[in-house]
């Protein structure tokens, strides 16, 4: 696989994964870029034992874990944790259908509700859900990306969905 093929095929998903791990667009862009650059430079050593996507997502995860160990980022995380400690998780109201906001507004509200619900999950649980739903990865592939047993993927995904169903019930019933 050439660097161009790797970038064209997996950039969007690497960014999606990074976005769910970091929780913000700026950090996600840095993380996805670092991981893709590492992958391209290590492409010669990629033996093709696993899928290239799985291999790249593992690099994303490792880069993220390394960033977590950075003292500067740890400070900001503690600060964010301090401010969000008192927030309680409540079911998210579906967008009000009357007096009828435009379809775009309704879509934006729906999107915001999903973002809010996702932010209630742990970063690794968000990664599991995203790899499953957006990239269709099997449990064994997700387990390989996260370096956890397959049973852990299964139980954490089930728990995350249960939580999201609880938070988004109004929205899901609308459909």
């Amino acid at each position, binding site marked *: 696989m050439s660097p161009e093929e790797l*970038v064209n095929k997996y950039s969007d998903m690497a960014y999606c994964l990074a976005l769910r791990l970091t929780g913000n667009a700026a950090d996600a862009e840095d993380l*996805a870029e670092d991981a893709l650059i590492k992958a*391209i430079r290590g492409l010669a050593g990629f033996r093709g034992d696993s899928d290239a996507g799985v291999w790249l997502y593992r690099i994303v995860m490792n880069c993220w874990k390394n960033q977590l160990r950075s003292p500067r980022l740890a400070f900001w995380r503690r600060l964010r944790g301090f401010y969000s400690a008192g927030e309680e998780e409540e079911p998210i109201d579906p967008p009000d259908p009357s007096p009828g906001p435009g379809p775009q507004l309704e879509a934006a509200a729906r999107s915001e509700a999903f973002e809010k619900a996702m932010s209630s999950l742990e970063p690794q649980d968000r990664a599991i859900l995203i790899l499953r739903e957006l990239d269709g990865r099997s*449990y064994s592939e997700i387990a390989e990306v996260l370096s956890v047993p397959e049973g852990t993927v299964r139980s954490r995904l*089930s728990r995350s969905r*249960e939580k999201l*169903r609880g938070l988004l019930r109004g929205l899901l019933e609308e459909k």
Partner: protein
Amino acid sequence: MTHDEIIEDLSAYFDGQLGPEKTIEISAHVSSCPECRAALDELKALSAGVKTNLAAAAPAGMKERVLARALERKKPQLRTSTVLAAALAVIILALMAALAAKRAMPVMFAQIQGMINGASSTLGASGGNK
């Protein structure tokens, strides 16, 4: 399998990640259990919602930037360890050259030694820098 066990496995069933036996058993149960059917419908709606609302494309220009940065030729950088090793080598060479010169030219070294001794005794006699 009991109803509660099936509820626990519903997420994996929805993903098609169970073995054939369990899949058949759960399919049979779901067709006759309104609660499980409703839960399955919610899982479908959730999955569709995640795909619609949480997919994101990489920011514009990211792909080009990544390729440019990854493929650019690495500029040679002097590491600290390299600089220290080079400095040490220079010092060792200088000492070896001095030792070799002392052996090869003892007269010149004796003259230099004499000049140093003379200068120090002159300074000593004048009382130094008072």
